[in-house]
């Protein structure tokens, strides 16, 4: 969706805020750490995937998206998805108590598992020889001019623009379909190099380039 989250190229947000690197806390408030940790601890239940998670932040009303802090968005997304997946009910969220007679589970993530979950590799290999790449490094491509109503990772600023395949990143899930239950539709992802002049016009520096990771389904031969 062409949501407010797709903000690459926008003006008006002012200067980049600067916190001293040495002293900025990882979490600025205690509740931020809890929101982060709860989100992570819910992961092993596999109630939703990462693309769905991103999609449900993007669907916040634009004014709310801009008003909320980063972890406030995470919190709102989590509540929405917990209810949407039937994991909890709205009444339970409002009361903060489990409904009488509701199921009591055993946490999927125990403290002993945290080092493994946080620090170990756990990802499907991206090497799938059965899935053939459509493009090779060096080929000229055009990002499609499409306007998906759902989740997409093709930003507006690159649509219709020409670039060059820089490298093949292997096979990955396709976010547009993976986000809304239509399946992972695994395919190759490439780093695509766009000149700033192609993206932003002749006043951009001839020495500036933007690299985007784009899926086969976002590209056509140019």
């Amino acid at each position: 969706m062409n949501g407010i989250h797709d903000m690459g190229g926008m003006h008006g947000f002012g200067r980049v805020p600067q916190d001293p690197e040495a002293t900025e806390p990882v979490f600025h408030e205690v509740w931020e750490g809890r929101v982060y940790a709860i989100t992570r601890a819910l992961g092993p239940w596999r109630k939703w995937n990462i693309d769905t998670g991103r999609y449900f932040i993007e669907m916040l009303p634009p004014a709310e998206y801009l008003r909320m802090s980063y972890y406030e968005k995470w919190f709102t997304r989590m509540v929405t998805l917990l209810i949407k997946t039937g994991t909890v009910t709205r009444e339970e969220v409002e009361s903060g108590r489990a409904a009488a007679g509701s199921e009591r589970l055993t946490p999927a993530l125990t403290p002993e598992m945290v080092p493994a979950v946080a620090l170990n590799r756990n990802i499907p290999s991206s090497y799938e020889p059965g899935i053939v790449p459509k493009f090779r490094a060096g080929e000229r491509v055009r990002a499609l001019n499409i306007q998906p109503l759902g989740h997409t990772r093709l930003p507006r600023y690159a649509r219709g623009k020409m670039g060059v395949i820089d490298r093949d990143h292997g096979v990955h899930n396709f976010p547009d379909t993976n986000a809304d239950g239509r399946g992972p539709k695994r395919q190759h992802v490439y780093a695509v190099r766009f000149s700033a002049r192609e993206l932003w016009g002749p006043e951009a520096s001839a020495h500036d380039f933007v690299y985007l990771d784009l899926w086969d389904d976002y590209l056509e031969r140019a």
Partner: protein
Amino acid sequence: MSVTGAESASGGEAQQADHQHQTVPSDISLRVKSLESLLVEKGLVDPAALDALVDTYEHKVGPRNGARVVARAWTDAAYKARLLADASTAIAEFGFLGVQGEHMVALENTPKIQNVVVCTLCSCYPWPVLGLPPAWYKSNAYRSRAVIDPRGVLQEFGLELAADVEVRVWDSTAELRYLVIPERPAGTEDLDEAALAALVTRNSMIGVENLASPKQVAK
């Protein structure tokens, strides 16, 4: 599992999220506590696991990890070659693994090429090597401007690039996560790997800062 229906794109979901935001208690800290106690009561999360997760990202995972990778790349040509060829595997030699670091790519800065990393669509960031992202990286200002005005953004970080330096902005639209290898500062020939790692800043591994020589810093 389909959690989204046809109404999503027309704003139905968004309105629901908005409504819901209105009906939970107004103070975010209280709302989070209330949700945590509900999830604990239902057996969905273990509060000790939450404590361990917070502790992990506050104290065990952070930019010192990435700094060690960079210092080794500076001092071990074979390691650097492995890092540039397959960063995920080379970084795994340190045990810096896990979520948001599964597909790593290392980008080498040179006098003629400045790599800069952003995620315009959200705030993707290589957690295992850099920890959780700083506020500036998540800011709308950085997300919106890094791709259209990279030199202006770098100036705000104190980095003035010559006009003929090639700027490469990497917008993390997929599950690839980028680690910038900054240039090794001049005057560090005598330093060992640990001392070099101490020089490497978080911002230099995102590409918005270049490292000064220790002598310059001492002045």
